[in-house]
């Protein structure tokens, strides 16, 4: 009974676990050519070892697992299997878990930023014309922020002279597409413009906000109306 368990653990499960670990690494790395070759070489070595073990069992009647005089080899076999599995876990974690978590966090962050920028770009108070421009520009890439300030400086002056106030509130927003370094968010919002002596003008606007990740921070690259045509 004891011998059967030792054979199972050291002669069967340990090599299988090592091979499983190597294949797992391959899956997590998506089988690049270099890993295909490394993995096949290592798997071949393991299979070879198992064959040698079996041949020596036929000769000596003792295997790696049941050899009372070879504890070091047992430790080495288990150690190699443990290393293969530990590497597999580490690679799986960095290649799968970390990007997945980052992406889920990015979705929330990106939608929040896009919604703020979209709202700020349609918000305007004649008393403080630069407040919302600054708020929007603060979330943009430096180049885009400069262009945005230039574009809106004239509009802001005009609106301020007419004493027009604008508010916008996001109704709905969702991620159209997202990658590790770029995202595109659709924002549907209601914009209200109040001009003195006129009824408020309410319009639903759909904006596409393009963002890119720069040094771990999402910044707005562009804001465009979705149905411009």
């Amino acid at each position, binding site marked *: 009974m004891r011998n059967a368990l030792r054979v199972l653990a050291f002669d069967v499960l340990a090599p299988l676990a090592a091979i499983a*670990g190597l294949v797992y690494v391959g*899956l997590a790395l998506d089988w690049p050519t270099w890993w295909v070759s490394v993995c096949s070489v290592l798997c071949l070595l393991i299979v070879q070892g198992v064959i040698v073990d079996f041949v020596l069992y036929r000769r000596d009647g003792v295997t790696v697992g049941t050899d009372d005089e070879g504890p070091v080899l047992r430790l080495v076999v288990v150690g190699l299997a443990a290393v293969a599995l*530990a590497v597999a876990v580490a690679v799986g974690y960095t290649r799968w878990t970390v990007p997945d978590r980052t*992406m889920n966090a990015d979705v929330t962050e990106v939608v929040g930023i896009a919604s703020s920028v979209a709202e700020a770009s349609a918000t305007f108070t004649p008393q403080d014309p630069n407040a919302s421009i600054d708020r929007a520009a603060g979330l943009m890439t430096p180049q885009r922020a400069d262009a945005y300030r230039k574009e809106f400086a004239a509009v802001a002056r005009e609106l301020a002279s007419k004493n027009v106030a604008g508010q916008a509130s996001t109704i709905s927003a969702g991620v159209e597409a997202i990658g590790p370094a770029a995202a595109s968010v659709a924002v549907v919002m209601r914009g209200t413009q109040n001009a003195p002596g006129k009824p408020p003008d309410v319009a639903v606007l759909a904006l596409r906000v393009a963002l890119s990740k720069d040094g771990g921070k999402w910044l707005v690259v562009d804001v465009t109306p979705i*149905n411009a045509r």
Partner: protein
Amino acid sequence: MPDEPDKVRTDRAGGVITGYGIGSAVLGLLSVAAIVLGLMIWSGHRNQTDELGYQTSAMQAAADWTNVLINMSADTVDSSLRTLHDGTVGQLNADFESTVEPFKQLVLKLKSQTVGQVDSVSIESLHHPQPGEPGAPSQQPELSTVASRTDTVLVVATSRSQNAGGAQPQPVRWNLRLGVSDVDGKLLISRLETVR
């Protein structure tokens, strides 16, 4: 490797057997823990992949449905409406006639040749219900019995109607919130809300 067993046989381990044995046992436990962790990581990643795949197909279903809705023409209105009706479930399916009646009347009245295009499709992840508005008929209790999940898809589309009168084509902008429900693996539209 082939030489090792013999070499080890000559290494008289003697009294340190227990030390090696304990080492092997510890590494064995470590391996078991690694296997469990690896399986958890793998299933977590598979769930994420499945989720993304599902979201893509939900967006596709919403886009397809909207495409039919915004491309209705006077002579195809009946077959279009049948297609649309077949793609619905729950409250929208029950109230389909009354919900799409305005669309139908508009198409019939204008005798228009409408060409529509879906501009943007996304899974809604942020929604502020507007004050002073009935808003979404939020929960549909009877839907939850047939559908395993319902996601809200935000669709922005533009359609141009070539009116019979030959007037300037007027672009119509659509901002739609569609509820996409998974009914036995089939994606059906359970809610249609126009954002105004």
